[in-house]
């Protein structure tokens, strides 16, 4: 059993938790290395339901340093990454009520906020930009969510984490590199000494393998 399976066993005990009623944040603020997906979802819901600043502080401690690292890997300088990480957390506060725990895990949702913030920044800086805000799944308001739906979404996020961990190291590496866009495919080809066509087919292969593992995990 990996760490992810462990989360769910441990979390079942507190599923009846209603984020609107308790001061949860104070009770879970422990080791920032150990924020489980379900805890993160609950904290986000506490921010949405009652503008819970303590819950937000826990999220900030966990995610801001990760966002900064993530944005740096996506090619930003330390100071811009710092800036966009803070901006992302501000958006997390503002948009918390749009978080739908039945649709995505907290890390996934925060990733999409960061992705769009990064695109906006690149666009403002006059560099190439990608996705348009026109279709932003994080902007869809949600209905009340059952604990069960929440687990399903958090489990999906976990399943993807597990699947990445199960990829052969070489494929996991290609997947990460192309996800971060830290290198373009031709740069990947150059640094790894593999012809471009081979790299493309390796990305395709890695995605196919990921798909297979995900199907097996379902």
């Amino acid at each position, binding site marked *: 059993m990996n760490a992810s399976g462990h989360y769910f066993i441990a979390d079942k005990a507190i599923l009846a938790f209603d984020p609107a009623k308790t001061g949860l944040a104070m009770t879970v603020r422990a080791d920032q290395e150990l924020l489980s*997906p379900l805890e993160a979802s609950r904290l986000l819901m506490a921010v949405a339901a009652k503008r819970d600043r303590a819950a937000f502080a826990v999220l*900030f401690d966990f995610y801001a340093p990760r966002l900064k690292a993530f944005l740096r890997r996506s090619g930003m300088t330390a100071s811009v990454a710092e800036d966009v990480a803070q901006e992302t957390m501000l958006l997390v506060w503002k948009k918390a009520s749009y978080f739908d725990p039945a649709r995505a895990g907290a890390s996934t949702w925060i*990733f*999409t906020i960061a*992705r769009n913030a990064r695109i906006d920044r690149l666009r403002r800086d006059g560099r190439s930009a990608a*996705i348009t805000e*026109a279709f932003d799944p994080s902007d869809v308001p949600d209905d009340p969510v059952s604990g069960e739906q929440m687990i399903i979404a958090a489990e999906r996020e976990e399943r993807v*984490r597990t699947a990445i961990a199960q990829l052969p190291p070489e494929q996991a590496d290609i997947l990460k590199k192309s996800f971060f866009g830290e290198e373009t495919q031709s740069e990947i080809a150059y640094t790894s000494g593999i012809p471009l066509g081979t790299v493309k087919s390796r990305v395709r292969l890695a995605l196919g393998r990921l798909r297979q593992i*995900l199907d097996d995990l379902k």
Partner: protein
Amino acid sequence: MIKHHPSDETLFRYANGSLEPGPSIVVAVHVGGCAACCSRIGEYEAVGGSLLHDIEPEPVETGALDRVMAVIDVNEAGRGAAAPRHRLPRADIGIRLPQVLDDCGIGPWRWIGPGVRWSRVTLPDDDSANVMLLKVTAGRRLPEHTHVGLEYTHVLKGAFHDARGRYGPGDLDEADDDVQHQPIVEEDGECICIAAVEGRTKLRGFFGRLIQPLFGG
């Protein structure tokens, strides 16, 4: 029944934010009506979530949380109406467009050749993206052509077919320079598509070649 979807790589690039704005909006139109691709994107976004969750954290500046909280305080104190969003002009082109395009500008239909009209789609944040709507009358055969770079064509209404198959409403045709084809619009009605090309250089593909003179290429 949707038969033609974007490739996994395209959905992956859509999810990680590296697909260009023009192709992204065409893919978004497809995804808005395709549960399978929507769920695939959810998975690729979860790859992002997972990488974010597991990345080695890098310390943020001291006082970062306090600064963000201070901004929040200011915002909450002065909660007012957000500035009204600038609306781009939208011509009535006689078809109900997907909601995803609500913020886009839509130009009037313009004639570019016998039986073919086009309308320019302007993205709210990026007016340089090459996105267009195309309307082709029933039964028309388009000139044989190849593509330069990837071209994304999503069918909104009607259908066309070529040697590779039939493309009806909801289908997305992702064609690269390996594809040489001669699409024919079906006899029972006009076909309306939204299309975009990768890159901002040349429009020489499916419909692009017809349009290129208008862009001064």
